[in-house]
């Protein structure tokens, strides 16, 4: 067996390893409760859409998906708007406290969530944002913003300074230069950053659950109620899980070319 065949085989084995658990989840979502508990079947004998039917017809279920999408989109928008100028500052200028500021931003990702949740709840309740989408979006900014600045700065450092200088000589003002010339040059970076924001905001449960009760409750928190008096409704739980994977697949589909183009990050 030659080298490139072995490479393909290795990758194929790894992808199989990734997909067997997901396969099991998907299969289980099409099974009824009796079949799941009745014994191991590799393929649903009684193929049923009941679990999905329950989710799509009950607004308390499907609103969870809508809520999650809303706060994730808000988070992506806020993060990009504030992180773009900041990353530009870090990539082009030296200023008082720049390295310290950078490490401080990053350090916010390191706070253990367990005990910090209670003060978060108190803070957002006291400013009247409890149970709103914006509260979750802002809380998630705590870890998406530092990462976004970090990634964007790498992309921006790849653009030569001469581009900026030429634009100023040609009479562009800073905002015009930034929006018309600079941003299009780093659009891959924006795509990759949006992907990472989505990734860390969509998957997070603790903040999202603590800061919401009814109106903005995310799907991940709603899933926990499949545990009822009669035990866990495995089929319904699996169906809800499958539906949480789909948005992620769509997002990675849109950014695949940006990631494939590659990025080397500047600052360490």
């Amino acid at each position, binding site marked *: 067996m030659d*080298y490139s065949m072995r490479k*393909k085989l*290795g*990758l194929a084995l*790894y*992808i199989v390893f*990734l997909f*067997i*658990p997901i396969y*099991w*989840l998907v299969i289980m979502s099409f099974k009824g409760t009796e079949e799941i*508990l009745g014994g*191991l079947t590799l393929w649903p004998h009684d193929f049923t859409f009941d679990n999905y039917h329950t989710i799509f017809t009950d607004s308390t279920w499907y609103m969870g998906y809508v809520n999650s999408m809303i706060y994730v989109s808000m988070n992506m928008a806020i993060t990009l708007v*504030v*992180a773009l100028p*900041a990353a530009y*500052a870090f990539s*082009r*200028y*030296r*200023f008082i406290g720049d390295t310290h*500021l950078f*490490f401080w931003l990053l350090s*916010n990702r*390191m*706070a*253990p*969530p*367990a*005990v*910090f949740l*209670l003060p*978060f709840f*108190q*803070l957002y309740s006291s400013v009247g944002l409890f149970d709103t989408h914006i509260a979750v979006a*802002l809380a998630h*900014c*705590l870890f998406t*913003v530092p990462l976004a600045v*970090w990634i964007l700065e790498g992309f921006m450092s790849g653009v*030569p300074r001469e581009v900026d200088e030429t634009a100023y000589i040609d009479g562009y003002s800073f905002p015009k230069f930034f929006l018309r010339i600079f941003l299009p040059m780093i659009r891959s970076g924006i795509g990759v950053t949006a992907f990472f924001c*989505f*990734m860390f905001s*969509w*998957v*997070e*449960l603790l903040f999202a659950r603590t800061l919401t009760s009814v109106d903005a409750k995310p799907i*991940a928190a709603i*899933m*926990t109620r499949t545990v009822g008096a009669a035990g866990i409704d495995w089929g319904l739980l*699996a169906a809800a899980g499958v539906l949480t*994977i789909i948005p*992620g697949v769509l997002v990675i589909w849109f950014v*695949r070319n940006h*990631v*494939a183009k*590659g*990025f080397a*990050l500047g600052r*360490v």
Partner: protein
Amino acid sequence: MQRKVRDNKAWFLVLPVFILVAFSAIVPIMTVVNYSVQDIFDQNTAYFVGAEWYREMLRNPALLDSLGRQFFFSFSVLAIEVPLGIAIALVMPTKGRMAAVSLILVAIPLLIPWNVVGTIWQIFSRADIGLFGYAVNALGIDYNYTSDPTAAWLTVLLMDVWHWTPLIALLCYSGLRAIPEAFYQAARIDRASKWAIFRHIQLPRLKSVLVIGVLLRFMDSFMIYTEPFVLTGGGPGNSTTFLSQALTQMAIGQFDIGPAAAFSLIYYLIVLLVCYAFFTAINQLDKAK
């Protein structure tokens, strides 16, 4: 490295980020500091106790146990995921449709909510309804992660490897794509071996993405909570009770907010210290070159 202009007006560009992050960061942290020096009975009754909680927590065997378990877990995670991730990135196709397809397939575990990851592995590994649990038992190995501590620990580790190796692979893949073709051409002219190409061209170019990868994996594995909580609930016994969960039990279960806050801050300082040391070491290495 490009030359940078010294200009303090750049602060205006950083200000929005500063305000946004400070809003969510400073008040909660100061609240936790406040809890950590008080004995709280209810909303109106609290006594100042100074550093007593800190002293007590540093002698608390249950917490020190979970701290040790935590370090062991984080280092196991890094030791498996970093080499495996690099290997995956090296074997992923570089061009054409297959490149995009394999990229999407490899990234999928990263985009699944963390409690769903726990659920997937719960459904997958249970001895009664799970494919994996059933298969391992069918092979004649007695495997039941709900009653055997070693099995539970290994299941959580396997879950983490499944969940997070793609992050390292993805970052490395992107880093590899950023290496100019001319480097490989030069290596071909020199008839460099595959290992030499990896050691002298690919690995140095991967450094910056690996730093991010290792830092992110260290922080997140050190604070792991949701996935083992769903999968094992910390048990059996305390075998998979990692630090976050031990603290949550203390703060919410037993309502010992003061001690839990004190230990949270110690915990936070440990993570900060490790990351800072890592960060500084890398920068020093850079300068030494």
